[in-house]
C-alpha cells in the first residue's frame, strides 16, 4: 500500500469516526455530561401545522360528551375503591343524647329539713358539667356512633388511600387518622340560676313549690389535650384564631334562656307519729325558650332534606387543565361545604339541645318522707338528724320533636346497575352522588315522641339544730325509660328507606351522691339561709356522669 493510499484510508476512517461521534441531529448525545432532548416528535414540535394547531385556541367541551365524562369519573371512582366505601355503614347510631332535666337534680330539692316560717323564696347559682356524655347506652366514644374503627370501612378506605397515595405528599395512614377521633365525645355545661319558691303550710294545708331555671347551656365536641396534640401532630396545627373560628362554627352550640317550670303540691298523709309523709302531684310545664342562641358557638338547624349540591365544580376542576383561582376556590368551597355540612348535622343532633324537656308536658306523683333519726337511735346526738326521702314518678306526654335518621344501605342498588354502560353514565353518576350524600348526611323528620317514664328516688341525712350551721348528705337515683316513636311525619314509602332503630336512644339511669352545708342568719323579719351544695354521679348508663356545684340563697319569712 503506498503512502497516498494509506493517507486516504486514514482520512476516510477519521471521517467515519468523527461522523459517528459528532451529532448528526439534535437527538444525539453530545457528550457524557450533556444529554440533549431526545424527543421523537421533534419534527412535529417544529412543524408549522402543529404551530397553527396550538395557536388556534383550546378545544371546548363538546356538548354531547356528558356521558363520556361521567363514565370517566365513574371509572376513577371504581378504580380508587369508592364503591366499596359507599356500601359501608358510616353511622352506627343516629339517636340524640339522653338529658336529665335540671328540675330533677337533688341539689335543687329543699335544702333544709324544715322551715320555720310559711314562705321560702330563693335561688341557686349553679354550675353543672358532664365531661363525657354517653352517645349510646354504654359508651361515650364517637367510635360507637360512627364507624371509625369498623374493619370493613377501614379496609375500604385504606384501599382508596393506597390507590391515591401519589396525591398526598406524605403516606396517609387512615387507621391512625381515624383512631385519633375514636375517643372524641360530647361535653356539656350548664350554668345559671334556679329560682325556687315554696309555701310551707301546716298539717291540713298543702305545700306548694315551684322551680324555674334561667341558664346558659353549652355543648361541644371534646378531645383531651393529649388527643388534640395527637390530631395536630397528624393533621397540622391551625392558628389560635382559625381554631377558635372553626370551633365556633362547627364544634360548639350554646344558648341562654329559661327552662321548664316545675310545680309541686303535696299534702300530709296519715302516718304513725314517729314518721311524716307527704303525698303530692307535680307538673312540668314546657316553658323553655332560648333568649339568645350562638353566644360562643353556633345554633345548628335540623333540616329534613338533603343539601342540593352541584358537584360540577369539583369534576370540572379535575377536568380543567388550567383552572383559575376562582374555579379552584369554588371547588374547595364545595368540598368544605360537603364535609362541614355533614359535621354540622351531627352537631345539630348532639349539640343543639333544648333548654327544657323538648316540649313535653309532665305530670307525676311523689312522696316525701321525714323520719327523725332520734326515734330509732335514741342518743342525745341524734336529736337533730332527719332522714328525708323522696320518690317520684313522672309521665311525659307525647310531643313533636325533630329526630335524625340515616338512609339504609343498599348494596343491591349497586349490583343492579351497569356502571360500564356509557349511555347510563350520567344517571349512574347521579346515583353515586346521591349515595355519597345518603351515607354522610342525616335527615331530621318531625316525630311524635313518647318519652319514657322518669323515676326518682332520693334519700338524705339532714342535720339542723337551732344553731347557725346545718348539713345534708345522701344518695340519688334517677331512671328514664326508653322513648318510643308514635309517628314519624314523613311519607311511609320514603320512611322504609330509613333506619329507625338507630335513631332511638336507650334507657338511662344515673346514681349520685350529694351533700351540702348551710348557714342560717337570723334577721328581725326573716331567716336567711346560705347553702353550698355539691353532687356528683358515680354510676350511669345511657347518659354520662356529671357533677354540680351550687350556692343557694333563700329567705324564709
Amino acid at each position, binding site marked *: 500500500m503506498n503512502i497516498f493510499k494509506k493517507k486516504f484510508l486514514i482520512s476516510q476512517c477519521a471521517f*467515519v469516526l468523527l461522523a459517528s461521534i459528532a451529532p448528526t441531529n439534535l437527538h444525539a448525545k453530545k457528550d457524557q455530561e450533556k444529554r440533549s432532548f431526545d424527543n421523537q416528535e421533534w419534527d412535529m414540535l417544529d412543524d408549522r401545522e402543529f404551530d397553527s394547531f*396550538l395557536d388556534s*385556541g383550546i*378545544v371546548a367541551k*363538546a356538548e354531547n360528551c356528558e356521558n363520556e365524562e361521567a363514565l370517566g369519573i365513574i371509572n376513577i371512582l371504581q378504580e380508587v375503591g369508592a364503591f366499596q366505601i359507599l356500601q359501608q355503614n358510616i353511622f352506627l347510631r343516629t339517636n340524640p343524647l339522653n338529658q336529665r332535666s335540671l328540675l330533677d337534680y337533688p341539689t335543687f330539692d329543699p335544702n333544709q329539713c324544715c322551715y320555720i316560717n310559711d314562705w321560702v323564696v330563693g335561688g341557686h347559682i349553679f354550675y353543672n358539667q358532664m365531661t363525657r356524655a354517653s352517645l349510646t347506652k354504654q359508651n361515650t366514644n364517637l367510635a360507637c356512633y360512627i364507624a371509625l374503627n369498623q374493619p370493613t370501612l377501614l379496609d375500604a378506605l385504606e384501599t382508596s388511600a393506597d*390507590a391515591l397515595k401519589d396525591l398526598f405528599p406524605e403516606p396517609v395512614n387512615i387507621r391512625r387518622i381515624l383512631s385519633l377521633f375514636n375517643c372524641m365525645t360530647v361535653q356539656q355545661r350548664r350554668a345559671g340560676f334556679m329560682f325556687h319558691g315554696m309555701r310551707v303550710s301546716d298539717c291540713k294545708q298543702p305545700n306548694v313549690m315551684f322551680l324555674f331555671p334561667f341558664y346558659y347551656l353549652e355543648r361541644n365536641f371534646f378531645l383531651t389535650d393529649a388527643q388534640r396534640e395527637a390530631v395536630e401532630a397528624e393533621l397540622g396545627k391551625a392558628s389560635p384564631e382559625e381554631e377558635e373560628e372553626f370551633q365556633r362554627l362547627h364544634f360548639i352550640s350554646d344558648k341562654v334562656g329559661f327552662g321548664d317550670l316545675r310545680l309541686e303540691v303535696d299534702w300530709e298523709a296519715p302516718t304513725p307519729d314517729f314518721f311524716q309523709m307527704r303525698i303530692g302531684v307535680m307538673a312540668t310545664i314546657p316553658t323553655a325558650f332560648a333568649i339568645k342562641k350562638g353566644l360562643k358557638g353556633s345554633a345548628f338547624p335540623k333540616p329534613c332534606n338533603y343539601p342540593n349540591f352541584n358537584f360540577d365544580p369539583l369534576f370540572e376542576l379535575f377536568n380543567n387543565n388550567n383552572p383559575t383561582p376562582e374555579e379552584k376556590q369554588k371547588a374547595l368551597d364545595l368540598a368544605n361545604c360537603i364535609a362541614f355540612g355533614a359535621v354540622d348535622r351531627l352537631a345539630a343532633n348532639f349539640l343543639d339541645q333544648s333548654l327544657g324537656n323538648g316540649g313535653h308536658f309532665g305530670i307525676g306523683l311523689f312522696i316525701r318522707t321525714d323520719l327523725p333519726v332520734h326515734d330509732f337511735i335514741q342518743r342525745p346526738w341524734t336529736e337533730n338528724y332527719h332522714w328525708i326521702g323522696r320518690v317520684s314518678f313522672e309521665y311525659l306526654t307525647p310531643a313533636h320533636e325533630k329526630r335524625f335518621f340515616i338512609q339504609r344501605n343498599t348494596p343491591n342498588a349497586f349490583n343492579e346497575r351497569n356502571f360500564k354502560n356509557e349511555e347510563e353514565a350520567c344517571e349512574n353518576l347521579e346515583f353515586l352522588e346521591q349515595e355519597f350524600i345518603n351515607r354522610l348526611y342525616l335527615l331530621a323528620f318531625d316525630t311524635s315522641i313518647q318519652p319514657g317514664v322518669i323515676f326518682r328516688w332520693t334519700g338524705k341525712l339532714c342535720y339542723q339544730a337551732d344553731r347557725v350551721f346545718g348539713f345534708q348528705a345522701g344518695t340519688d337515683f334517677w331512671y328514664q325509660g326508653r322513648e318510643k316513636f308514635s309517628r314519624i311525619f314523613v311519607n311511609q314509602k320514603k320512611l322504609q328507606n330509613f333506619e329507625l332503630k338507630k335513631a332511638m336512644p336507650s334507657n338511662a339511669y344515673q346514681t349520685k351522691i350529694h351533700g351540702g352545708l348551710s348557714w342560717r342568719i337570723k334577721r328581725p323579719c326573716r331567716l336567711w339561709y346560705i347553702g353550698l351544695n355539691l353532687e356528683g354521679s358515680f354510676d350511669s348508663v345511657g347518659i354520662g356522669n356529671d357533677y354540680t356545684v351550687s350556692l343557694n340563697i333563700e329567705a324564709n319569712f
Partner: protein
Amino acid sequence: MKKLIILCLLFAGTTTEPEQKEILLESNLLKLVDGFLVNANTIELLRGYQRNLLHIVYGTKEGDMRLGDYDYNGKKYTIHDLSHLEQKLETHKDSHSAQELEQLYGQLQKTLKKAKDDFIEKSKKFRTIGAGSKHITSKLIEESCKKRGRRNSVLLQWGNAPEDKEDEILYNEVHTFAQFELFVVDLLNFLDDLIHSCPKAQEKFKARLHKWSKLKEIMPLVLPGKEQDSPLAHEFLKYFKEHHIDSYSIEQLNQPLIHKLLQEYKKTHN
C-alpha cells in the same frame, strides 16, 4: 478498500442513530387519570410548553435555519449556541486580555439573566398544570431523572422547591449557559416522559392532530384561492377546533361536511 470504507460507513450509520427508548413513569395516579383527567387538552398544553422550551434552547425554525432570541455581541443566538460560545471562550481564555474577558463574561451573564427571565415568563402559563400538586410533580421528576441517570440535575432541586421558590433555584443554581441548557433539556425530557406515560391522552391528542392535518388539506377545496389565507379561514379553523374537532371521526371529515360547516359558520358569524 472500498468494501472497508462502506463497512465503516454502515457501522457509523448505526452508531450515530440516537437511542430512541421511551421512558415510562410508573405512577398509579397517572395510570388512573390517563385519558380522563389527563386528556388531549393536557397533552396539548404540555406539547405547547415543550415547543416554547425548544424555541428557547435551539431557537425558532425559519426554513432550514434556526434563529435564536438572545443578544450577544450584537448578534442573535440560541441558548445552545451561547453554551458553545461560552465553552469556546473558556478554552481560549488566554487569547483575550483580562479586560476583554471581563466584558465578554459580563455580556454573557447579562444575556443569561435575560434568558432565565424569558424562561420564567414563558413557563407561567404552564405552571398552573401542576399548581397545587407540587409533590406529585416532584415525585415524577425524580423518577424521570433517575431513569435517565440525571441524579445531579438542577431540575430535581427545582422540582422539590416550593412553588414560590422555583425561580430562586434557577437564579441561584444556574450560573452558565451550559447549566441552563442542561436544565431546560432535562425539563423537556421530563415532559416527554410524562406525555409517554399517558398513552390514552396522547392517542386522543394525536387523533386531533390528524384531523387538523386533514382539515387543512380540505380547506383549499372549499375556499377559493384568495380566501385561503384570509381572516375568515383562520377564524373558521379556530372555530372548528374549538367546537367540532372531537365531534367527528377522521373518516367523517370530507369536503361536503367542511363545506356545510363553513356555510353554517358564515351564517352565524356574519
